[in-house]
């Protein structure tokens, strides 16, 4: 079943056409990667799905429901979470608070001014459960701004994961990481998809990582889809090699 489907999605910034008719189908439970050169429209595509930008034309369906043009908080509440290319977290809050915010929202507890001990307990438990998944339970009381770049990226993903999403959109989670951090994130993505059963759409330039974890790869080039296939077939695709991967690959 398609958990996400786009039909003829187009986005124009005045005269510049960033996306020119994207048809994409994402199946439930898969890791679906989007690759392509800079300026291909990948992040713009995420911005349309998550409601940051409004599509010029076309439709976006989530579980067969039309979500085109809905505001970010509504899309988030429906179950689509995202992370950002540039770390986007709550810097002056603790790691714990960063995660707890998402939990409070999905549990609808932000207006509970006199939470019972049970409520406080399960909010804390769920928060620590997420901290454990991202491996940051020992840094719970550290200010997010004081974390290393790699940990910030992990936390960014944790905030998204804590929303208990059906789909998690990851925008370049490996950008700027050292090889060890890179491996940790790759491992984490696999864990989220496998154990937590979250569908993942991944934008990433690290093609080795992409090919190793993806079930399906879509290649964007100049606002269009030029190929979509299993990783091993994308590797061999002439068009993709020409436009993006290069000869040595």
């Amino acid at each position, binding site marked *: 079943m398609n958990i996400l489907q786009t039909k003829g999605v187009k986005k124009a910034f005045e005269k510049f056409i960033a996306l020119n008719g994207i048809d994409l189908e994402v199946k439930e439970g898969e890791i679906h990667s989007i690759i392509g050169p800079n300026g291909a429209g990948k992040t713009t595509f995420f911005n349309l799905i998550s409601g940051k930008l409004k599509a010029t034309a076309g439709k976006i369906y989530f579980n067969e429901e039309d979500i085109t043009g809905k*505001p970010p908080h509504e899309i988030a509440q429906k179950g689509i979470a995202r992370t950002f290319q540039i770390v986007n977290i709550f810097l002056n809050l603790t790691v714990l*608070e960063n995660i707890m915010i998402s939990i*409070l929202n999905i549990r609808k507890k932000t207006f509970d001014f006199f939470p019972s001990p049970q409520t406080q307990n399960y909010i804390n438990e769920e928060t620590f459960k997420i901290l454990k998944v991202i491996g940051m339970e020992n840094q719970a009381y550290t200010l997010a701004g004081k974390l290393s770049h790699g940990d910030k990226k992990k936390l960014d993903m944790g905030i998204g994961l804590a929303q208990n999403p059906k789909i998690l959109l990851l925008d370049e989670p490996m950008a700027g990481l050292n090889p060890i951090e890179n491996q940790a994130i790759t491992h984490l993505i696999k864990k989220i998809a496998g154990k937590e059963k979250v569908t993942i759409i991944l934008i990433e330039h690290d093609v080795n990582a992409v090919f190793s974890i993806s079930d399906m790869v879509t290649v964007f080039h100049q606002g269009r889809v030029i190929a979509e296939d299993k990783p091993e077939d994308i590797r061999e695709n002439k068009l993709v090699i020409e436009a993006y991967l290069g000869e040595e690959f």
Partner: protein
Amino acid sequence: MNHKKWQVLAIYIFVIILLSVFPIILPSFGLYLLNEILIYAIFSYAFYFLFSHVGYLSFGQAAYFAVGAYSVALMYKHVSSTIWLPFLTAITVTFIVAFIIGYLSVRVTKVYFAFLTLAFAQMIYTILFLWQSFTGGDDGIPNVPRGYLNIYFMKINLESAHNFYYFTLIIFAILIFILRKLITSYFGLALRSIRENIERASFVGFNTHRYVLIAFIISAVYSGIAGALQASLAKMAYPELSYWSTSGEPILMTLIGGIYSFSGPFIGALLYIFLKTYLMAIIGNWVLFLGIVLLILLLFFRGGVMGFFEQKFGIEL
């Protein structure tokens, strides 16, 4: 509770006892000043809540201060001599005005928000100034009574300076307690997430406009209550209560006391009113002195007076 928390609690209790007992020995002018300090502290807490915990700098809090003041003044003059109806009216009217202005203002942030709230406050000022038949125009509403506080068979006359002071103190204590509760609640955390990163907060699933609007209204109602008390204390309401310089006062007080400290607005109001009163008597040009104080604070003590003490003694007050 750990050692530090007990210390903080002890200090708070000490301050409350001080505020309760001190007035017995104060001369009437000192009592008036202390009363005004409590009122302006409430006003500053209104600003502090919206600025320090939601990240929105309102330059138009005077609008609600004045709306509260005029509501109470008009109700006392024409309708009721007990406090309930006038104060309920003040709260209701500030709520409605804040809802309308807030609904339009929370769509923008930062300096745009500051200017929009300022523009709306100046509109309120113009209305108060020009609507002669209703607001008394330039003269405002003089000779406002302080009314009676009647609970069951008790009828306390608030014209007495002491009675009115304790009335203010009780309201102050209740409002500060509620604010503390708000800030430390889950709701407070949600607001701080908006302060930190409004974009991410909306992607987490918060309808951020709604949260900011609620905080805006709370802040406005606090300002309105402060205004209502001020009109009773000074026994008059006048257009300058809504002027932009009045909006500036809670900002300055909070800056002096410390924008990151819960006790900041109170200490700020205390220092500001104390210095203003006595320096004006001694050197006359108090504004020049205020400028120098602000310069020193902004250059060397960003956290204000309380921020400095908190750092020095390692406790959060």
